[in-house]
């Protein structure tokens, strides 16, 4: 045993007694290192090649989908550059399959849109009031660029007091406004799952005021689909709002019949001397008015981040530094109270030509929406593709 151990321990020494084996070992090591490096480089190049192929396939599919349009349902074949695209136009979905040079097939799907969104959604902040734009940033837009609701959808939408995800809260206003409010107050009741249920049409109506509150100062809610919440009263943001997709939340703060919007110059939450009416005629309705948004309330965090799309028909009242993280519209003005300032964050604007939101009137011709890849080009071989992939029941997001 001692002899065997000695032979093992002295083996490297014996191998080193001749320079040739050492040199061969060194060369093999260099060769192996080179092969590993080249293999890694080839892998990186292949990754980029696939990404480029996917991007080009997406461009070709997009061009083909727009060329075919949605007016003629059925299967169409379009040549775009060097690529051949099969376009299947359905009632609700447009599906495109791109045959690439290396025998792979990229598939994309897009919802059929009834038209374009109003141009105002293409900006981080838009308002017809130059003073509001000066305060927040953004662009001044004309009446034609502003959105309008589909009245039939709003009339048929479920009311928040009878829809899971919202509930009436008679005490919330009393805790933050002296004297409370005259109309019903509602809060968001996030289910345990953290995801708000969305009705089929994607619209919920709050018949009164909506309060955004949270003990942590941040209200988080998840959405599987886009949701339009029409607030027929005021919106009180006493907490930051974070919406976790893929769905988006659009809060539309409206002035219902019989109510009045006003600029609450003293910030007391009710119409009083010195406040400015936003419409002609005498003040009518509840003292707290409607259509207004209040950022920053007693008991809330010192700064607010607002992560929902917003259309405020009335005044934006800002009592705390607020950052908008989604496109917003103030159809009236902005009233800054105390240290309250509002600014636009680094939010992504909507592609108004190819995007859709529930409950809004659209403009222009029906069209395919944004194409979404159904699978990476390499993941779906040409042969053996199940045809039902082309007919997704609902558009993915």
């Amino acid at each position, binding site marked *: 045993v001692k002899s065997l151990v000695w032979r093992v321990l002295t083996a490297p020494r014996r191998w080193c007694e*001749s320079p040739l084996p050492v040199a061969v070992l060194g*060369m093999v090591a260099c*060769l192996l290192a080179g092969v590993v490096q080249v293999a890694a480089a080839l892998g990186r190049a292949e990754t*980029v090649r696939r990404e480029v192929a996917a991007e080009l396939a997406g461009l070709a599919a997009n061009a083909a989908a727009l060329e075919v*349009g949605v007016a003629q349902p059925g299967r169409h074949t379009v040549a*775009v550059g*060097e690529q051949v695209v099969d376009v299947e136009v359905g009632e609700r979905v447009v599906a495109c399959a791109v045959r690439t040079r290396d025998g792979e097939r990229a598939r994309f799907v897009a919802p059929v849109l009834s038209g374009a969104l109003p141009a105002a959604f293409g900006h981080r902040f838009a308002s017809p009031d130059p003073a509001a734009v000066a305060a927040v940033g953004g662009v001044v837009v004309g009446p034609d660029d502003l959105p309008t609701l589909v009245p039939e959808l709003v009339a048929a939408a479920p009311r928040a007091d009878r829809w899971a995800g919202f509930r009436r809260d008679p005490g919330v206003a009393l805790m933050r406004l002296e004297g409370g409010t005259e109309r019903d107050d509602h809060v968001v009741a996030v289910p345990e799952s953290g995801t708000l249920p969305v009705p089929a049409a994607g619209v919920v109506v709050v018949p009164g005021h909506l309060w955004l509150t949270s003990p942590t100062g941040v209200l988080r809610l998840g959405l599987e689909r886009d949701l339009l919440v029409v607030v027929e009263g005021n919106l009180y943001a006493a907490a930051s709002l974070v919406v976790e997709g893929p769905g988006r939340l659009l809060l539309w703060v409206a002035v219902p019949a019989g109510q009045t919007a006003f600029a609450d110059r003293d910030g007391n939450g009710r119409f009083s001397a010195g406040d400015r009416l936003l419409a002609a005629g005498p003040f009518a309705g509840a003292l707290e008015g409607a259509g207004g948004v209040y950022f920053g309330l007693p008991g809330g965090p010192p700064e607010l981040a607002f992560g929902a799309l917003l259309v405020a028909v009335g005044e934006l009242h800002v009592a705390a530094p607020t950052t908008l993280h989604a496109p917003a519209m103030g159809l009236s003005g902005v009233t800054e109270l105390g240290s309250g300032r509002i600014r636009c964050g680094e939010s992504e604007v909507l*592609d108004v030509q*190819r995007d859709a939101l529930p409950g809004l009137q659209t403009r222009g011709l029906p069209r395919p929406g944004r194409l979404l890849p159904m699978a990476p080009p390499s993941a779906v071989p040409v042969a053996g593709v199940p045809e039902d992939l082309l007919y997704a029941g609902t558009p993915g997001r």
Partner: protein
Amino acid sequence: VKASAGRGERWAAFALLACGVLGWSFLQHRVADSDAALAARRTQLEQLRVLVAVPNGSAGALDAVVGLLDGRPLRWSERDGIGYLLPEARP
């Protein structure tokens, strides 16, 4: 190294080692060149994605990506007021 190793054996060993190191160095330089080209291609791919995400029809922005995506020219096109990038066949 054993003192008895012949002069020829030592030169052969040196040559082998030198070949290995030079070959490895050559491959490393080629890989570095390839990675640099790849980085440029990836940058332009990102630029293309920005163009696709926010179509603005700017010919100047398009110049930055033309010719590097498989050599295919791209041009802006429009249908029903919707701008989009159209990949054409190789010239």
